[in-house]
């Protein structure tokens, strides 16, 4: 029995990795199609039906391009940077609870890569490491544009991490736990955190955009001022890893937003469903709901990208430090007062 659980666990972990990679792959396709649609165009539709083979064609192209390392670059760090970016992006998906429990034999196995009781801290810590890939890659390129991109990424991530952490604190105060699964279970049915924490949700979402280096906060790679930012000197699959890690990050951020604020695998009427269908089927419906929410937020990320222009750097900093952090602190205080009043 012990072995069985181990097998199921490793299958779940592999599945989580595979799914995050697959979703990231198809996010590139979805992003291009969506961008085209928002601009009255068609987007890539030649490779396979609806252009669905486009990501594979892109990958083949990136793999077969020339590997190039600039002569004055720091060779090992130049390779290490994109690998680290990809590694940290993938690691953070491990603690996300994608669903309730699966009944196998007489055991209930939670649908989650690793169960830790400090899941929020874990994902937060991994996210804060994500900037190293960009910084090291940008610095090792030995190019002033790359360096500027790297420095921008570092200061942007540190600034927005603060507001992000403070926004999460209000959620933690409500659930009283750092365990992502417990946070999800507290939002049973339609009792989602977003109804109690609308301000915290907006702050968190804004910071998630900044942490993923997505427009309107894509200053580290702003192509019309810094050429390509931190990945100016990169080519072939090393560039691919950088671009890919952005999409993995986007998937993880969307999943965490839906877990923290939109109830994860909870949906209104889930008790009714649970009464009438077998346990595993109910779990599967929950997983589907979770993915629907995640996909919506991925869509939202792209929608925002093709709507809002990029911030200027001083605007970015003043938004982070002068608006989001004070707002997040006020949010914490109000949440604390309300909790004190009603308990």
């Amino acid at each position, binding site marked *: 029995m012990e072995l069985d659980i181990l097998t199921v666990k490793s299958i779940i972990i592999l599945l989580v990795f595979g799914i995050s990679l697959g979703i990231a792959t198809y996010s590139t396709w979805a992003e291009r199609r*969506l961008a085209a*649609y*928002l*601009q*009255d*165009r*068609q987007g890539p539709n030649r490779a396979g039906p609806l252009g669905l083979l486009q990501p594979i064609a892109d990958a083949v192209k990136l793999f077969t391009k020339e590997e190039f390392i600039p002569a004055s670059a720091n060779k090992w760090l130049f390779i290490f940077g994109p690998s680290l970016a990809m590694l940290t992006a993938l690691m953070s998906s491990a603690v996300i609870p994608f669903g309730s429990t699966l009944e196998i034999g007489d055991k209930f196995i939670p649908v989650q890569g690793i169960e830790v009781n400090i899941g929020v801290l874990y994902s937060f810590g991994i996210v804060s490491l994500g900037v190293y890939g960009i910084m090291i890659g940008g610095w090792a390129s030995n190019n002033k544009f790359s360096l500027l991109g790297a420095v921008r990424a570092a200061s942007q991530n540190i600034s927005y991490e603060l507001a992000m952490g403070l926004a999460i604190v209000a959620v933690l105060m409500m659930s009283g736990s750092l365990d992502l699964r417990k946070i999800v279970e507290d939002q049973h049915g339609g009792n989602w955190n977003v109804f109690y924490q609308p301000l915290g949700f*907006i702050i968190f979402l804004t910071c998630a955009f900044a942490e993923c280096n997505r427009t309107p906060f894509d200053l580290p790679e702003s192509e019309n001022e810094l050429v390509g930012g931190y990945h100016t000197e990169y080519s072939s699959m090393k560039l691919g890893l950088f671009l890919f890690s952005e999409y993995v990050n986007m998937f993880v951020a969307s999943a965490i937003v839906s877990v923290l604020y939109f109830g994860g695998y909870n949906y209104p009427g889930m008790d009714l469903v649970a009464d009438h269908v077998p346990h595993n089927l109910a779990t599967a419906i929950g997983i589907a709901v979770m993915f629907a929410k995640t996909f919506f937020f991925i869509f939202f990320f792209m*929608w*925002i990208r*093709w*709507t*809002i222009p990029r911030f200027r750097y001083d605007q970015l900093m003043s938004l982070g430090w002068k608006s989001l952090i004070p707002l997040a602190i006020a949010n914490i205080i109000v949440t604390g007062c309300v909790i004190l009043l009603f308990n």
Partner: protein
Amino acid sequence: MRLSDRAKDVSDKNMSFAERIYLPAIATGLGVTIKHFFKKKVTIQYPEVQRPVSPNFRGLHVLKRDDEGRERCTACGLCALSCPAEAISMVAEERKKGEEHLYREEKYAAVYEINMLRCIFCGFCEEACPKQAIYLQSDKMAPAFYGREEVIYGKDRLLESKDKTRPTDGPKRRLTATDTYIDPIAVGYNRQLKK
């Protein structure tokens, strides 16, 4: 006077609270973009769907034959001379006995080449031709190339086939270094000298 009613007066008044928190503006922007998401796309799927072209559109060249299936071209070189891009070159040859069913005139073009990378599809060759031998089709465009050797169209690809359908059965001979052909530059130069 206002040219359109879309102009807005510029003002430097302070932003209201709603404007300063940006969120309503962002929501409006999202609304605009999502409206475009559902709009009809204007893209034309080119190889499958083609835009209609004008009947006097100047596309790919063709060397015409007359009603009896004889080549009309007499290799006078006027097309090459009139070509501003100097894309046409040819080698003339005399018609032998027994070839009357092949060539209409006593002189014909043994080699006729158009460099499609140089050609600007101006149609001057068509205008210059006294025999109505070269013609720019309105329904066919010069295709894209994969290699430079495909760029030069010889008689094998230019000449109309006997039953007026392509591909042609024209000669496959191409220009060689030993050929003496009408050099448009030299001709023009001579003409200037004569003046």
